[in-house]
């Protein structure tokens, strides 16, 4: 290559070509090889070429944001809320599940024995039950203990004294062996215990837990449905914003296509925008979820304390945060891809 062209403007530079040693015709083998040598022969050259195209796309994306700042901000916020809402529900439900998992361990069956049962018979039955494979611990509460407890907790001790005889039955408290036992397994155990001749009433104290499990299942399904609906809404919002951006840049797209840009080249700045919407929306969602959980922390802690539980609300965690970001970026990219593919084809140079 000759030395750099002089900086002085030369409006009428005679027959001097941009490159005096070569004709302008691209089809001569000479120029072809020149072209090839400047693109993609080495990784370095390829990277530099990519960097130039990347710079172009980023400038386009920034111009797009500058041209519609409010739409851009609103899109990010809408995306963030669409992500945050199901995420908050999910985290709360996860916490509920964690609590009930502890209660599941406490699943216990009270066997109210017939009042005629003697202490020896009761202890023998307890011993017998302990050998059963699905039963862990069996506690014996004698008639006297039951009375004591009743007096202490009910404050009706004097009334019982009037009866003369202790009317309370002896009780065996049966704990299933498996701490994470399923509700229907407990139900089956209750039914078999009920058939024992010494047992008056077999009662599962945590039947409501079964209903809670049912409610949790409903909650999970609801989150899926809400999440799916919000996902579609987010796609529509992103798609609409990109549609506006494409319309804003119709002229530029036509010119670029006329100069020989492929669809991919034209699409790139819009995909970058979608990526930015997704990333910002995802970060916003993480912020929203963290704020909601933080706001809930103290009241939940207070409630837990009143149940003398040391329960702590679990936060978003790294995995879920990463998932939110990934979901945001995925949504942003998908929304802009769908929209730009749909609207780009219609924009051709020469078509008004």
């Amino acid at each position, binding site marked *: 290559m000759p030395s750099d*062209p002089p900086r002085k403007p030369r409006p009428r530079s*005679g*027959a001097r070509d941009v490159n005096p040693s070569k004709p*302008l015709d*691209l089809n001569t083998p000479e120029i072809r090889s020149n072209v090839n040598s400047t693109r993609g022969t080495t990784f370095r050259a390829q990277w530099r*070429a990519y960097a130039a195209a990347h*710079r172009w796309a980023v400038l386009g994306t920034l111009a797009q944001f500058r041209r519609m700042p409010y739409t851009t901000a609103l899109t990010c916020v809408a995306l963030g809320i669409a992500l945050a809402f199901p995420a908050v529900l999910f985290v709360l439900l996860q916490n509920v599940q964690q609590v009930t998992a502890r209660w599941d361990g406490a699943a216990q069956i009270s066997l109210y024995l017939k009042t005629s049962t003697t202490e020896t018979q009761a202890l023998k039955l307890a011993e017998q039950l302990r050998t059963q494979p699905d039963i862990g611990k069996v506690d014996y509460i004698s008639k006297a203990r039951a009375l004591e407890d009743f007096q202490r907790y009910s404050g009706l001790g004097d009334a019982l004294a009037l009866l003369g005889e202790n009317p309370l039955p002896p009780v065996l408290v049966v704990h299933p062996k498996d701490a994470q036992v399923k509700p229907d397994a407990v139900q089956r155990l209750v039914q078999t215990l009920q058939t024992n001749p010494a047992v008056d009433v077999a009662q599962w104290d945590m039947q409501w837990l079964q209903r809670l499990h049912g409610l949790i299942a409903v909650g999970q399904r609801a989150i899926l449905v809400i999440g799916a609906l919000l996902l579609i809404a987010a796609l529509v919002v992103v798609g609409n914003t990109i549609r506006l951006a494409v319309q804003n840049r119709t002229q530029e797209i036509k010119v670029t296509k*006329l100069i020989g840009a492929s669809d991919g080249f034209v699409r790139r700045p819009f995909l970058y925008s979608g990526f930015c919407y997704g990333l910002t929306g995802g970060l916003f969602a993480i912020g929203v979820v963290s704020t909601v959980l933080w706001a809930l922390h103290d009241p939940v802690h207070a409630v837990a304390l009143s149940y003398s539980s040391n329960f702590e609300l679990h936060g978003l965690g790294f995995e879920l945060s990463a998932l939110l970001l990934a979901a945001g970026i995925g949504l942003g990219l998908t929304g802009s891809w769908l929209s730009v593919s749909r609207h780009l084809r219609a924009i051709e140079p020469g078509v008004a």
Partner: protein
Amino acid sequence: MIQFSNVTLRFPTGHDALNDVSFTLNKGELAFLTGHSGAGKSTLLKLVAAIERSTTGQVVVNGENLNRIRRSRVPAFRRNLGIVFQDHNLLHDRSVFDNVALPLVIEGFRGEEIARRVRAALDKVGLLGKESFFPVTLSTGEQQRVGIARAVVNRPALLLADEPTGNLDPELAREIMRLFEEFNQVGTTVLVATHDIELIARKRHRRLILKQGRLDADTNH
């Protein structure tokens, strides 16, 4: 380089913008496409640039049969063309440098090569030193020259221009025409559409004259 065989283009309105046009423009030639407004000059250039497709007849440009070209092939085909528009078609939120660099960026050149070639092209049209300007801050003539720099920066085999001097005063117009002659002298095939007969009256170049969509004359003086 360009071959039209009995080309007719009928718009959906039923109007024949071009009617049975046949001509050949060889590699390295310079020709002016003239005729009154509405004669079909822009339409003919659009056929060459694969913007429109002919209704009947065959258009072959740079070895490519444009009647049968696939959509996905069109961008690569257009990279061998340089097109100058009457209304510049510059990107207003990009600097002069970026406007001229666009064809090179599309082709995948690397940064330094782009900078070198953009400067060379701007030097050629007398705008070196205005790289960082934005199009709106330039005069009409300067904007037109930025458009020309963009059209030639990737050294296209074929240069098309549609009324490149339409908005310019006579002095500037002559200067632009000289630029096209210079590009042609170094081997580029050039086809310029203009209704400005006076501008090319004294020039000894090939002239294709359109009249209501028909090729009325193909002269060499």
